């Protein structure tokens, strides 16, 4: 089976300091993979390399078998890659449904239409409300982002990505800054993502995150130091050393 994501010998340095150092990684279709590691381990840099926001110094990135190492970010999105951001990155002056509509437009050829009013695309907004329903926010569809709570914004982040029906979804700390109850809600949401979608997730909250993933990769100083099932990784002394701190 072709891996959803195949990374080989990936390197990226900032001013001589390696942020990603010879990382190789494979994520199979439908897999849930968790990436952990201390602050500065290069987790978000790895995401930015996968999405194309950063270009690697060396190495290859394959999406579903296709080499996308040199493709610009929007082209990778058209190949089934979607992501969320650790720092909320939404269109704060616009309504929730408009945010989702922009997400859907990104993959639709209608995005080039300059003459038909966007408001006339009833099916687009209908679909947007359906996606918002999936994350439990349909009742807020007409509210601007600036008027909803932080926890709701986190859900919109995920809804933006889900609206694209991605094949590979990158979640960058989807639980960051959420209360205990909110965490339970968002965890349920992530657990409910259909199995056709491969999920690669960065998360600090080990208690919750470990339950979501089958396999775990531990990054430290830009390198993969441990990889395996939950039990293997937790039992490995190297994990304890760098991450669990004893």
């Amino acid at each position: 089976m072709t891996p959803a994501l195949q990374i080989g010998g990936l390197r990226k340095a900032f001013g001589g300091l390696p942020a990603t150092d010879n990382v190789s990684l494979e994520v199979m279709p439908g897999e849930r993979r968790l990436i952990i590691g201390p602050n500065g381990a290069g987790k978000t840099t790895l995401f930015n390399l996968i999405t194309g926001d950063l270009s690697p110094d060396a190495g290859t990135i394959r999406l579903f078998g296709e080499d996308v190492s040199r493709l610009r970010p929007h082209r990778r999105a058209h190949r089934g890659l979607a992501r969320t951001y650790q720092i909320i990155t939404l269109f704060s002056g616009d309504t929730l449904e408009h945010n989702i509509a922009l997400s859907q437009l990104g993959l639709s050829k209608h995005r080039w239409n300059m003459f038909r009013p966007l408001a006339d695309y009833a099916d687009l907004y209908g679909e947007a409300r359906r996606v918002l329903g999936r994350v439990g926010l349909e009742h807020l569809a007409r509210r601007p982002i600036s008027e909803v709570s932080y926890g709701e914004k986190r859900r919109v982040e995920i809804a933006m990505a889900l609206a694209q029906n991605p094949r590979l979804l990158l979640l960058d700390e989807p639980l960051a800054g959420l209360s205990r109850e909110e965490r339970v809600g968002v965890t349920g949401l992530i657990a409910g993502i259909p199995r056709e979608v491969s999920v690669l997730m960065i998360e600090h909250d080990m208690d919750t995150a470990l339950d979501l993933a089958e396999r775990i990769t531990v990054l430290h100083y830009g390198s993969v130091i441990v990889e395996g099932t939950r039990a293997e990784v937790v039992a490995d002394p190297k994990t304890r050393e760098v991450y669990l701190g004893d």
Partner: protein
Amino acid sequence: MNRTGRVAVAIALAVLPLVAGDFYINLSSQIFVAAIFAASLNLLVGYGGLTSLGHASWIGLASYTSAWLYLKMGVGHMISAPMALGGTTLVAGIFGWIALRATGLGFLMITLALSQVVWGTAYRWASVTNGDNGLTGLTRPAPFGIDLDGAAAFYYFALIITAFSLWMMAKFVNSPFGAALRGTRDQPRRMSALGHDVWLIRWIAFVYSAFWGAVAGLLYVYYNKYIHPTALSLTNSAEGLLGVIAGGSGTLAGPVVGAAIVVIMKNYVSAYIERWNMLLGFVFVAIVLFMPDGLVPGLRRLWARWRAK
């Protein structure tokens, strides 16, 4: 604006030449030209978040092309108009390709530099542009045999072109493409992660904005029947930008109102106050101080507050 308001404005504009003298009719025609110019610049500044100081290039290039084709090539308006629009848009395609290597301040400086090149060329390339003397002896077109030399006739011609231009720009802003353009202004990184080609969206917006700038240029040269390098000057670009910001960038009505203020100051107030530029400066400072997002959004807020009482 509600339906009643719109109908009232339409009626007022339609009957203005019947009640006003030539001075005010001509002043209104100039406002129309400035309105298209500012509205087209606003597509870039207000909706694209790309502040340009070179928009006068499109007025100048379209004007000079049309004038040169008529004077030196003997080409009629029916052919010179589309050639001027096409040629200007083509140049905009190249300028946009260069300027959009940057955003923000870098973009501003490149547009300024490129427009200064065009301005310098207009001054120096005297065999084509007649240099500092400008090109004179131009005519207005006569669509369907209607003579546009009278103030009222030209007013109606300009009104129709302006209404059509603003309508097309409003459609653009409200379209999916317009929404994507605003998206690239607010969250460019997210937009590319969503599959939008941010660079191409900006480039198309740049070219589209220049096209309507060129339409303003044609009206400008038809109105003045004369073209001089000052049309291409930084002052002209800056006046357009002033109109956009004073009226309210990123709104449809703002630049029209802002352009009207600038034209009225320049043509009407200058007859009474010698230092009209200073007054324009004061007005601008007052607007920025009291209504930082522009007159139209500011007045809208006041109106809403007054109604809530």
